[in-house]
Every structure is written in structure tokens, then in C-alpha cells.
């Protein structure tokens, strides 16, 4: 297991270096530059342009800029946003808890519904339940997030008035953030109704963000379970007279979970990508919206820093997923 862990950790280093190059290059490969965008229709004189380039460090050679980015990075410094003039790491961390909170609730929602739906669909293959689950998951997977979000807002907030339209909590409540996680902060704030308001605000964005992962998990669980259920050992377990619940829940599901866990791990990237749209629709103050704004403003330090941090998170989650395989399937950790 230790060797397995070391191998996985060693693979992270070159990946991380690749990510620094990609994140540095990505924003610079896009046409347009921040100074022109900042000036807009008003334009900027060549002298002023030179002055601004010097201030922002864009007058230096690209490799020089990259190595200085890398050098600062090693000291934990991701640079300063050229738009807000605030440190990139601080900007990211101020918004990150909101994204984490939304993503965690969204993935819990997706697993809580997707996993049992996929299992039941596999067990009751060919029934109306199976067709319904597969039909719904295909619809959910194909649904554009933007449209789906607006549809839910109009129906649940506009017509039924069950949920608030957007934001993280009603403006009735105000308290200094302690953890940055609204569910926790609203409990700590000890203001009656604050927690309920935070929960109500979380429902629609979590459903919207969780829809695609839910669909993927349901489909993957179904196909994986179907494969396992046709294995000899499952037939043997049934022949031994074990209860159907035990056969499916213990013997089949554990093996089927290996592929499902892989899919869940991959969904972290999907969640972070989906968060960009979901956060924009629901005015959710997370990193997705911040990244979009930074890309449009060609805020080089913010985009490269943000991309690097997001990529690092995806790498860490995938490492955890790899390690989880070892727990689920002992043969992997012994390889």
C-alpha cells in the first residue's frame, strides 16, 4: 500500500509542472490583452501603454514571466490581480468555501439519488422503473445547465414561491463569516431562521449542479451492477439462499462500486466546470463566477492562479479516489 501511495504521489509532480505551464500559457494564448480591455473605447496612448506594461510586468520576456510566476509560487505567492489589485490567493480563498459547500451538497444529492436509482434499475432491468430512470438520466445529462437553472427558478421560486431566487442567505440576516460555509456560519450565528434560509437558498443550485453527476452515476451504477449481477459468484450466493438484499447490497454492490467511485472522482472536474454556470445563474459567490470574470478581463494572474488551484484540487481528489480503490478492492493495493 505504501509503495502504491508513493507511486501515485510521484506521478503528481510532473502533472503539477505541466499544469503550471498550461495555466500560464492558456490565458496568454487567448487573443486580446488586459490593457486594451481595461481602456475600452477610450483607448490608451502608446506611452501610457508602456508605463502600464512595466507596472504589470508584461514588458518582460515570456519565459522570464513564467519563471518569476514559478518562483513566487514556490513561496506560496500567486501574484496580485491586475484588476482588483488584491492577492490572487486571498481572492480565491474568499470564494472557495462557497464553491465547496455547493459542490459537496450537489455530489451528496447526486449520490443519494443516483446510486440507489441505478441499483434498482439494474435489479429491475427492463421494467417501467428501469426505463424511467434511464430516460430521466439521459434527459438530465443532456440538459443545458443554464436553461435548467432558469426553469427551476421560474417554477419553484417564481410560481410556487417555495425557494428563494438566488444568493446564499436572505438579506434579513447578517453576521460576520467564520468558516465561509454558510450552513455552518448560519448555525454559529445563533439567529433564528438563518440556517433554514441558508438551506432553502442551497436547494436549487445544488439540484442544478448535481443533475449531470446524478445522471452519470445512475447510468454507471446500472451498467456496472448489471455486469456484476451476471457473475457466477452472485449466482452462487443466490443459490446458497442468501437474501436478495444481501446479494445485491453486499456482494454485488461492493464490486460494482469500483467503477462508480471512478466516475464520482471524475465528476469533481465536472462539478467545478458546472459551478461556473450554476454560480452565475444563482448569484452564488464562488470561484466559478470569479474565474469567468477574470477570463473576460484577461486578468492573467487571477486566471493562471485560479486554474492552478482548481487543477490541484482535481488532482488531489483523483489521488484520493485512487487510494479509495485500494480500500474497496484489496487486489489493487497488492499489485
Amino acid at each position, binding site marked *: 500500500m505504501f509503495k502504491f501511495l508513493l507511486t501515485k504521489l510521484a506521478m503528481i509532480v510532473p502533472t503539477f509542472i505541466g499544469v503550471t505551464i498550461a495555466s500560464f500559457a492558456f490565458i496568454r494564448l487567448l487573443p*486580446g490583452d488586459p490593457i486594451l480591455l481595461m481602456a475600452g473605447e477610450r483607448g490608451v496612448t502608446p506611452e*501610457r501603454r508602456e508605463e502600464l506594461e512595466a507596472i504589470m510586468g508584461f514588458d518582460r520576456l515570456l519565459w522570464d514571466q513564467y519563471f518569476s510566476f514559478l518562483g513566487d509560487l514556490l513561496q506560496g505567492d500567486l501574484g496580485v490581480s491586475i484588476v482588483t489589485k488584491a492577492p490572487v490567493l486571498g481572492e480565491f480563498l474568499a470564494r472557495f468555501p*462557497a464553491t465547496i459547500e455547493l459542490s459537496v451538497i450537489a455530489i451528496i444529492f447526486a449520490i443519494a439519488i443516483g446510486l440507489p436509482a441505478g441499483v434498482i434499475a439494474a435489479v429491475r432491468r427492463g421494467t417501467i422503473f428501469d426505463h424511467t430512470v434511464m430516460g430521466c438520466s439521459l434527459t438530465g445529462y443532456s440538459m443545458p445547465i443554464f436553461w435548467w437553472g432558469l426553469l427551476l427558478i421560474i417554477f419553484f421560486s417564481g410560481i410556487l414561491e417555495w425557494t428563494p431566487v438566488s444568493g446564499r442567505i436572505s438579506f*434579513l440576516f*447578517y453576521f460576520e463569516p467564520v468558516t465561509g460555509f454558510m450552513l455552518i456560519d448560519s448555525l454559529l450565528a*445563533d439567529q433564528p431562521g438563518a440556517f433554514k434560509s441558508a438551506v432553502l437558498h442551497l436547494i436549487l443550485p445544488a439540484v442544478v449542479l448535481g443533475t449531470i453527476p446524478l445522471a452519470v452515476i445512475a447510468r454507471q451504477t446500472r451498467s456496472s451492477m448489471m455486469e456484476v449481477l451476471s457473475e457466477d459468484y452472485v449466482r452462487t450466493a443466490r443459490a446458497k439462499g442468501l437474501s436478495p438484499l444481501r446479494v445485491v447490497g453486499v456482494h454485488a454492490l461492493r464490486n460494482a462500486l469500483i467503477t462508480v467511485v471512478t466516475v464520482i472522482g471524475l465528476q469533481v472536474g465536472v462539478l467545478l466546470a458546472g459551478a461556473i454556470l450554476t454560480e*452565475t445563474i444563482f448569484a452564488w459567490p464562488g470561484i466559478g463566477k470569479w474565474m469567468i*470574470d477574470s477570463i473576460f478581463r484577461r486578468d492573467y494572474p487571477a486566471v493562471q492562479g485560479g486554474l492552478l488551484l482548481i487543477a490541484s484540487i482535481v488532482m488531489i481528489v483523483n489521488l484520493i479516489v485512487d487510494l479509495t480503490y485500494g480500500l474497496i478492492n484489496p487486489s489493487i493495493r497488492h499489485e
Partner: protein
Amino acid sequence: MAIDIIYKHNNHPAMSQPGGSIMKARLIAAAAIALFATTVQAKTLVFCSEGSPEGFTPSLYTAGTTFDASSRQIYNKLVEFEIGATQIIPGLADSWEVSDDGLQYTFKLRKGVKFHSTKNFTPSRDFNADDVLFSFERQFSKSHPYHMVSGGNYEYFNGMSMPDLLKQVSKVDDYTVRFTLKRPEAPMIANLAMDFASIHSAEYAQKMAAAGTMDSFDQNPIGTGPFKMIAYQKDAFIRYKAHPEFFRGKAAIDDLVFAITPDASVRYQKLRAGECHVMPYPNPADIEAMRTDPKVNLMSQEGLNVGYLAYNVLVAPFDNPRVRKALNKAINKDAIIDAVFQGAGKVAKNPIPPTIWSYNEATVDDGYDPAAAKAALAAEGVEGLKMKVWAMPVQRPYNPNARRMAELIQADFSKVGVEVEIVTYEWGEYLKRSKAKDRDGAVLLGWTGDNGDPDNFLAVLLGCDGVGGSNRAHWCHKPFEDLIQKAKLVSDPAERIRLYEQAQIEFKKQAPWATIAHSIVFKPVRKEVTGFKIDPFGGHSFYGVDLK
């Protein structure tokens, strides 16, 4: 504490919100307590703003979103635009005098003006000349200790040519300051009413410098304006409280909240649900629904902008004014207003919008007449003309869909035998390439006014200095140039009006642009909101606004 919070906000629209039943029960309890209390009910107005501000020091930034969150609530200027108008009124200056040679502007400052008190700062003195000097010297002098704080980009100060214009800003006494210019500049007063000219507290700056927290000066703003900022959570909200000692009297509302909501359709849903009272930038597609919405008062006003198609007058056959006028006659502007602006626009005939003083009502537009256009082109020997029309890749107030506009122009021009190829570039590239003197084709662009002065349109967009820059037509026409240069120097308003009216006639004769449209700005506000005025500059001010 909980009861206090609910009680304080019991006029809040979110009381009609989902989950409000518990709130209502608590409200009854709170109301019972309130019977014995002497506190006055607090009024909270929620504005669903479209984005986060870049920061809170207006001189460092250029976005309207930033000015809404900073200068328009927190700060004052020496002179200001009357809310909802382009007229200049006294701000922190009581009065001012301009010397006969137009080189010295002397301002008498208002006495007894209080800065905000917050948890970070309690002012020990009233506003005075030191604050004015600090606010301008920070931008003007590269050796000023605050010049490079927060990046040191003063784009508006530079964009309005202040470094070339200002010779000195000096303190005559505690309540008198003098601006000395290098050359006369009639729009100077209007420039000083712009957001970058907001006045900051020099005492607060000194305190932050002494504490070694100069960055904090720009993040935790202190001003003299009607609202003080008390909390900001990035991309979520900004909270303000009314400044009790505001020199024009305390605002009618007690609390102001900016609920940052980037999507226009969601903003409208929030407005309908009572989660906000005022929203900016509605979706054109939602306008019809808003008109008939019983909860919404849809306000509208012509915007301070112009959208145009600039020919390149340095390239044949567009160097011939008769060809340009013929092409102008081929454009069906009414169809553009319907299809591109969805009715939310007005055909433009002059290069300045009708909301700006000196707008010349008497000029005659090159009306839509394809037959006459075709004949005029033939008379000039223009046959089989092929040209490019540049379409912006972004949505702007003066042009909500440049691609669609270009397609309509393409169809119109084809009717008079002119073949159009539509080209576009990424926005930064578009702005850069469209400046080139050898640019191939006519470019769609526009302008939103900064200070309500005609000079801000005519000199910037059509003056000889702008050729190869902001003058996209590259049109340098001496009779026009003489008129606008003279208008810069004279301070008599009537004479300036006459000169600018004449300049508009010259413009129409020469037609370097096809003037397309001025947009109409829509502002949906809830019916219980009173006193809100649409700002011609596109901003949002909440002083004078109340809730029924």
C-alpha cells in the same frame, strides 16, 4: 439579538418570501415588543447589482459597476451632476470662480462636512482643503506616497488628459483651493464632477499610512457621501448604512444592500419575488413582461450614448462625402431599431445624444431612400463597390447586437449594389485594429458620455487629435475642428451652444459616420419605490429614494 435583527428589517421585501411564515410569527412577537420600544422602523432598500466592484476607490477603476458601489453612494465631488440630470450643481464646493484667461479655477469649500465614522476610523476634523489636495495629488504626483498603492492606474484621470492639463492644485486657505491649468479647458468643471474626482479623507490616509496598512485605505472606504459601507462579501453583497450627518440631510432609507446578481433574468425574478427593489440592465426580451407586471414600474430614458458606423475617410471611395451620404441613405435605421434594439432605441441623426445640451434639433438626417442612394452612388461613378463592415463581438449599451446590425446593413447595402463582407475580432483586437489609418472597411462602434459635455463626444470622437485613435473615421475637417477648439476656450455657455450646434451642421454635411441609434435605458423598480431617478450616465444613486 435575533428579534432586534428581524425588527430592524421588518420593512424588508423578503418578508413576503418563501419560508416567511416563521419570520411572520417572529415579526408579530417583535412587533409586540416594539409597541414598548421607541426605535423607529429601519428601511432597507435592496439593489440587485450586476457584478462586483473592482474596488472602492473610484479613481483607480473605470467600470460603472465600481462607480455605483463607490463614488455614487460613498463619496462626493467638488461639483456634482444633479441626480437624474447632466446639470452641474455644487458638491463639496459651495461656489467657484474661473479667471478671465480660463486658467485658474478657485473653489470655495463647504464648511461643516463630516466624514463617515466606521469601526476602522473616527474622523477628528471636518472636510477641508487638505482632503481635496490629497485626492488629486495622489493621482497627479508620481512621488505621492499613495500614488502606487493598489497598482497606481488612474485611467480616467489620464483618459481625460488631466496630467497634460493640470499645472498645479494648491491650497489658498483651509476652505479655498485653486486649480491652475496649462491651457483653457471649458469642460474642466464637468470633468471635476466625474467619479475619478471623488474626495477622500486625507486624515484617514495618514492614519492608514502610519499603521502600515495603506492597501486598507482602498478596501475600507471613508467618504462624505450619503451612505457608508459597513460590509462587503465578494460576489455576494455590499451593505451600507445611511450617513447620519450627510451634509444634504440623512437619506430617507436607513440601510442599502447591493445584492450582486449577474444574470439579468434572475435579477428580474428577484425583483418580482420582492428580493430586491431596483435592478439594472434588464434583458430586452423581458421588457414586455415588465411593462404589464403589476409589481413593477418600468422607468425609461434615452441613454447618454451614440452608436455609429464610421467610414474610413482616408480610403477611396469613402473619402468622398457624397459617397458617404449616399451610403447613409441606404441604411434603414427604423428596421435596425426594431430588430436590434427591439424598440429600445431612437434613430440618431447627430453625433451627440438629445440629452446633452447643444443638441441641434435643426439638422436634417440622411433619410432612408435606397433609390436616391443608388442614383447618388452612380453619379459619383461608384459601381460594384465591395466593402467590409466591422461588427463588434460584444454587447454594449449603444449596440446590443452588432452582428445583427451588420447583417441588416449588409442587406440594405446590397439593395444599392454594394457588396458587404462582415468581419469581427476579439474585443481588444477589434479596438486596436479599428484605429489603423489603413483600416479596410467601416466600423461599428459607439460611445457613452463621461461628463455630459458635448466636447466629450465631438472632440474625442471626431477631433483631429483622435485620428489614428478614438476618431475611427480618421476624419480631420478644419471648419469642424476650428469650431470645437474654439468651444473649448470660451466659457460663455450660450456661445458654446452656438459653436457646437454649428459643428453638428458641419458633421452632417460631411457625414464621416452613419449615425445609427441612441439606446433607451430601461430601469425596472418595484412599485413601492419612490424618488428613484434614472441617471443619464448609466449610474445608480439612492440618495432621495424612499419606500412606500
